């Protein structure tokens, strides 16, 4: 292949210094500046060759995309540095500033996602999506597919899809695998079962439902006391109260489903 102007660093320096200002940070800016200010020696081919080889935003973004990851704030400088083949310090400063304004960093995403962490319920993938979308509305997500970013952030935070969480909570509260009656425990004659939710160690956590009374109080309460569990009442109010107290803990592709601090099951994060 025959040599081009890009193969002659002194020529590149001379032309760039004469016609291209540091604030011409994009390829289009460079070409426009060369065509406007330069003489007949700078043909369109020369201008394009220069714009393709000197440091521009596009060159840095191409490098970021090739890395396969969203860059961190600290990595931006290194991306800019290694994209500059002609040691143009002035251009490095302005291109770095332009990239920081244009490209989302891992810290931008982390802050946006964390700002959506709720205080009264578990964090869901939908919260993560909302955070990533907010970042994407003002900056470009480069280096990784936004959907992959959402999935990675959700797994890192143990944030399942809301439907998966609600389903797991419903299965735990709606059809508990443990029904104990006062008759079973020998504390009463009622045979109607009281639902018991146990933690993953098998210890009873909460009891609800039941029918009848024992010693002037609901049979379910007596069963709960006998088992050493909380009594959550009966009826739809009890089920609603229980449903609202499920949370998650842990991170990764499978997290604990917890009830009042105790692990009672698992939820997949996807």
């Amino acid at each position: 292949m025959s040599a081009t102007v890009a193969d002659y660093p002194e020529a590149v320096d001379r032309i760039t210094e004469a016609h291209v200002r540091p604030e011409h940070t994009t390829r289009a800016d460079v070409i426009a500046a060369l065509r406007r200010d330069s003489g007949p020696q700078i043909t369109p081919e020369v201008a394009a060759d220069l714009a393709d080889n000197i440091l521009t935003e596009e060159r840095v973004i191409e490098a970021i995309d090739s890395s396969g990851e969203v860059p961190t704030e600290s990595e931006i400088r290194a991306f800019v540095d290694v994209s500059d083949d002609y040691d143009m310090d002035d251009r490095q400063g302005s291109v770095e500033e332009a990239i920081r304004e244009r490209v989302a960093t891992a810290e931008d995403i982390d802050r946006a996602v964390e700002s959506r962490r709720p205080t009264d319920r578990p964090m869901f993938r939908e919260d993560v999506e909302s955070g990533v979308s907010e970042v994407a509305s003002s900056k470009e997500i480069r280096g990784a597919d936004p959907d992959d970013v959402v999935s990675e952030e959700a797994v890192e935070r143990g944030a399942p899809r809301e439907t998966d969480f609600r389903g797991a909570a419903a299965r735990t509260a709606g059809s508990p695998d443990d029904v104990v009656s006062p008759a079973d425990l020998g504390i009463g004659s009622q045979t109607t079962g009281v639902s018991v939710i146990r933690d993953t160690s098998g210890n009873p956590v909460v009891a609800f439902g039941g029918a009848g009374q024992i010693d002037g109080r609901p049979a379910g309460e007596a069963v709960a006391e006998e088992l050493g569990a909380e009594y959550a009442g009966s009826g739809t109010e009890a089920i609603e109260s229980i449903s609202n107290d499920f949370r998650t803990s842990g991170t990764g592709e499978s997290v604990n489903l917890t009830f009042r601090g105790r692990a009672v099951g698992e939820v997949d994060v996807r």
Partner: protein
Amino acid sequence: MSPDAKREDFWEQFDGVSAPDDQEPDRELPTESVRDLLEDELVADRIHGITASRRRGDTIYLVVSRSTTLDVVSDLDIEMPVVDLRTVVVDLEDDNLSVSDNGLWIPAEAEIPETLMKTLARTMSDLKGSTDDDAPPLLNSAVDGLDVELLLDREIAVSEHEVGGQAVDKMRRHTGIDPSRPWGYGAGPPPEIDRVVERLEEAGLNPAEHTTRLVWGKKEPMDRRPRPINELKGNYGIELLPRNKGLIALDVDYPEHFPETELPETFEVSSPHGDDSQRHIILRCDRKHEIADRLGAWAIQGVEWGDLWIGDRYVVGPGSQLSEYGCDNGEHTRGEPGGCAECESETGGYYRIVSDAPIATVEPEDIFALIDESTGYELRDRPVDPDPPELDDVEEEISIESLKEHEDPDGIECDSCGDRRSEDDLKTIEVAGSTRRICRGGCIDDEGSS
């Protein structure tokens, strides 16, 4: 409301979540008798007897005695004839029959069940109250020449054993832990955990994300992994977490130097050393990242009154107890025998709640004011790296020398800074068709920052 109506009412709250029995209710399914299902499920040469042992609602528990072979009931690949007593669960609500793992096998020799019958008969008498509570167990043997009483009196060597992942024998030999408390021996955390759970929930925080297991008798963490309460054993910590919202803690070691700042009443925990004025003040802040930005880190030390922790630290939970090996007070060294009088005592060494108030919320400005009134630290004027490197040890700071130690002389050179790193510590990128490498996380300059 009937149980069915209650159940339907509950499921209606979860749109898109189908109930387990929502599928084709009108389709008629083929049926099979429980007897046939049981014979199909149980691999048996013969079923000797079936006993219904319990019923819970529509779930019935059966104990089935069958003749089969050892390879059917165990992982051993031996076709030895055995008699197996096995629990089978019949669920009439869900139309399900399952053979459980709850079973007992014995060799298929008539003398053995005959001898066991005597044991079962004695068991029956005990349960009925026909024998004295302190009557010794019935001893009998189906093995010729084996006297069970002589066997029980024989001495054999024992080794240290674990209960729930904790070295029980070792724990028992170390002084300074109340032996009457079961939680230190593979059981759960101290009862004070319930109060902590209440306070955290009150503050809108998930307890399972903030509690972590500590080493028995010490304040060191097992692994800094937040765990649900039911996975805690013995001493526990309350993680602050490096998040924008959540807990912060003031570690007041020198209360005489603590500024007279107006802080709200809040939850406070004292350590076993010193008096109650030396304590951890636990607060909540919804803009912790602003504090971290001004501090330049998630924790600072060297304030004249103690330490300020915003995240990435934990507070030892109340009810935790230090043994002599957990004591680092004064001249005592953690991990070495011999602690202070408090930690060597079985009734001492406790972390206690000294202010049982709800965890109060403060603003970053309140903490800035506290720092401004303290000596030993100055707040930075500009935000710094919001993702500072995690410190593995509270006492250690990352030095330029230690960063340089991370260089790998046999590694690959970063095309930006020239440092040599292992491949995992570099990112490989393409610039105009040529492969280049940069330090993962950013290059470290001569001043030690990236």
